[in-house]
C-alpha cells in the first residue's frame, strides 16, 4: 500500500524536516504521499510536490487547521488513514504532539524517533538518552512512526507530484489557540544547521551569553544552541535546548562552550561529525566525546577563537 507523511511547515515554507522524513519513509518501500495541513498553505503543498519521488500531495487548507492544534490535525489524519499502511511524521514538537494521538485513535503502538529502517516493520530507535539502541518489530496492522530527523539526509527536489485537496472533519471545539511567542533570527535553524555553537551555565547571564556566543556564531555562520542549565537560567530560549529532552542534532561541527557534558546533553549532540569543547575543567566529561578540546577560560578563549578565525 502507501505511506503518508505529515509535512512540517509554517503555512509559508516547507521545513527541511519533511525532506528528511521522506528519506526514512521511502525506505519502507511503498509509494509516499505527503499531507500538508494548515491555513493558506498551498505554497507549502507546491514545495512538497517538488520533492523527489512523491506520489501525491494532499492539501488540507482550513481555518481549523491554523496553528495545527493536535485535536483537529489528528482527526484529519485518522480520516485519511484507511488508504495507508504507514503514517510517518518528523519527531518535531508538532509531530510529537499530534502523532501519538493518531496512533491511539487507530489502536496502534507508535514507534517513536526511529533512527534506522531495517524492514517495513522493523526499526532501530534510541532509548535511555541514546545510551542504548533498541531494534523493534511492529505487529500492528498499520505503522505509526516518528522519525529522528538528524538521523536521515534530506531527499532532494526534482519531482512534480499532483496536489489533491482533501476535506477536513468538523472540530470538536475542545481547544483553541490563543497566541504564540516565536523567536525571530537570521541565523540558521538549530535543527538543520551545518555548524552549531552552544553555550552552558558557565556563561553566567543572558547578557554574557549573547556577548560571547553570538559573535562566535556570527563568525562561523552557525546556529546557536544551549544546555538545559543555560535555558533554565534564562540565558537562551527554550527552543535552543540541545539534549535528550530538547533538540537532537548532528551538525558537521558542534562547539560546546562552558558545557560540562552531562548524559542528557550528550544525547542531543554526540552524533555531530566534529565536536569542539571549550571548558576550563580538564576533567569535564564533554572532553570524552570532543575531537578537539581547549582547556581554558571561555571568556578569553572564545574571543581568541574568533580572532584566530578572522586570521
Amino acid at each position: 500500500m502507501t505511506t503518508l507523511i505529515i509535512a512540517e511547515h509554517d503555512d509559508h515554507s516547507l521545513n527541511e524536516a519533511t525532506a528528511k522524513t521522506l528519506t526514512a519513509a521511502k525506505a519502507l518501500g511503498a509509494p509516499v504521499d505527503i499531507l500538508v495541513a494548515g491555513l493558506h498553505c498551498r505554497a507549502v503543498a507546491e514545495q512538497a510536490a517538488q520533492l523527489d519521488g512523491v506520489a501525491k500531495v494532499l492539501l488540507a487548507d482550513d481555518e481549523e487547521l491554523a496553528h495545527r492544534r493536535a485535536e483537529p490535525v489528528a482527526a484529519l489524519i485518522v480520516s485519511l488513514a484507511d488508504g495507508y499502511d504507514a503514517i510517518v511524521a518528523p519527531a518535531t514538537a508538532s509531530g510529537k504532539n499530534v502523532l501519538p494521538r493518531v496512533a491511539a485513535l487507530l489502536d496502534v503502538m507508535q514507534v517513536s524517533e526511529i533512527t534506522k529502517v531495517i524492514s517495513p516493520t522493523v526499526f532501530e530507535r534510541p532509548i535511555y538518552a541514546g545510551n542504548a539502541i533498541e531494534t523493534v518489530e511492529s505487529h500492528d496492522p498499520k505503522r505509526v512512526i516518528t522519525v529522528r530527523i538528524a538521523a536521515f539526509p534530506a531527499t532532494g527536489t526534482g519531482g512534480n507530484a499532483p496536489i489533491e485537496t482533501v476535506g477536513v472533519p468538523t472540530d470538536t471545539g475542545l481547544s483553541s489557540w490563543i497566541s504564540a511567542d516565536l523567536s525571530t533570527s537570521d541565523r540558521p535553524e538549530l535543527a538543520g544547521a551545518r555548524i552549531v555553537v552552544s553555550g552552558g551555565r558557565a556563561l553566567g547571564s543572558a547578557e554574557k551569553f549573547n556577548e560571547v556566543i553570538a559573535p562566535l556564531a556570527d563568525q562561523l555562520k552557525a546556529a546557536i544552541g544551549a544546555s538545559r542549565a543555560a535555558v533554565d537560567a534564562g540565558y537562551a530560549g527554550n527552543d535552543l535546548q540541545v539534549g535528550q529532552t530538547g533538540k537532537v542534532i548532528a551538525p558537521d561541527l558542534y562547539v560546546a562552550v562552558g558545557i560540562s557534558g552531562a548524559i542528557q546533553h550528550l544525547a542531543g549532540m554526540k552524533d555531530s561529525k566534529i565536536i569542539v569543547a571549550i571548558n576550563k575543567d580538564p576533567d569535564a566529561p564533554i572532553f570524552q566525546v570532543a575531537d578537539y578540546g581547549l582547556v581554558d577560560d571561555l571568556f578569553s578563549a572564545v574571543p581568541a577563537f574568533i580572532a584566530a578565525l578572522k586570521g
Partner: protein
Amino acid sequence: MKILVPVKRVVDANVKIRVKPDGTGIDFANVKMAMNPFDEISVEEALRIKEAGLATEVVVVSIGPDKAAETLRTGLAMGADRGILVKTDARIEPLAVAKLLKAVIAAEEPGLVILGKQAIDDDSNQTGQMLAALLGWPQATFASKIVLTDGGATVSREIDGGSETIALKLPAIVTTDLRLNEPRYASLPNIMKAKKKPLDETTPEALGVDVTPRLTVLGTVEPAGRTGGIKVASAAELVAKLKEAGAI
C-alpha cells in the same frame, strides 16, 4: 476538582545505564531507581494547584511491579493524597499504559490529568497524547505554564521556535516540560506521614485491559562509541586543526 498524576519508576537520571552484553536489554542489577523527573514536575504542579485552592485532591497512579509502590510513596511524601498501583510485572507499552489510565479515570473522574512529557527510560513521548485520544479530551503537551480558568485551562507550551498558548476545556490532559516548575523535596516528617496515606492496588486484569505488547524487542545494543580526541593548546591551534579537518 480532582487531579490525577501518573508516575513512572525509572532508572535515576544520574545513572549511566549499561547494556547487557548478550543484547537482551538493560542491566538493572543494583541500579538506583527514581520517579521519572518529568513526573516529579507533574506532581509538583498538581500540588500547587491544590494549594491555590483550585483542586481538592491529588491522586498519584503508577503501573508496574511491587516496587512501583515506592514511587507512589515518593509522590505521597511530596504531598499527594492517595495512591493507586496497577500491579504488573509485564512489559507495558505506552498504548497499554494509556488504556489502563483510561480505566482508572473512568472510576476516579478527575478534572485534570497531568503527565510528564516523556519517561527518561524509553524516551517515547506518547502516553499523554494517547490518553487524550482514547478519552476524547483536549491535550496540551510540553507545558511551561498552566493557569486554571472557569471550566478550563490556559496552557503555555514549548514548541519549535518558541512557545504558544492554548486554551482547553476541562477535563483535559496536560504533559509537563522542564520549565514548568522546580519540584519540592519531601521533608522527613512528610515521608513518615506518606507511609500512612491510602494506597490501593489493582491489576490490568481487574481493569479489563489487554496489555499484550504490539512491538517485539528484537535486540538492544550499545551505540557505536565515540572516543575523545586531542587537547589543543591554544585557539590558534584549534583553528588550524579545524581547517585541516575541513570543518571550517
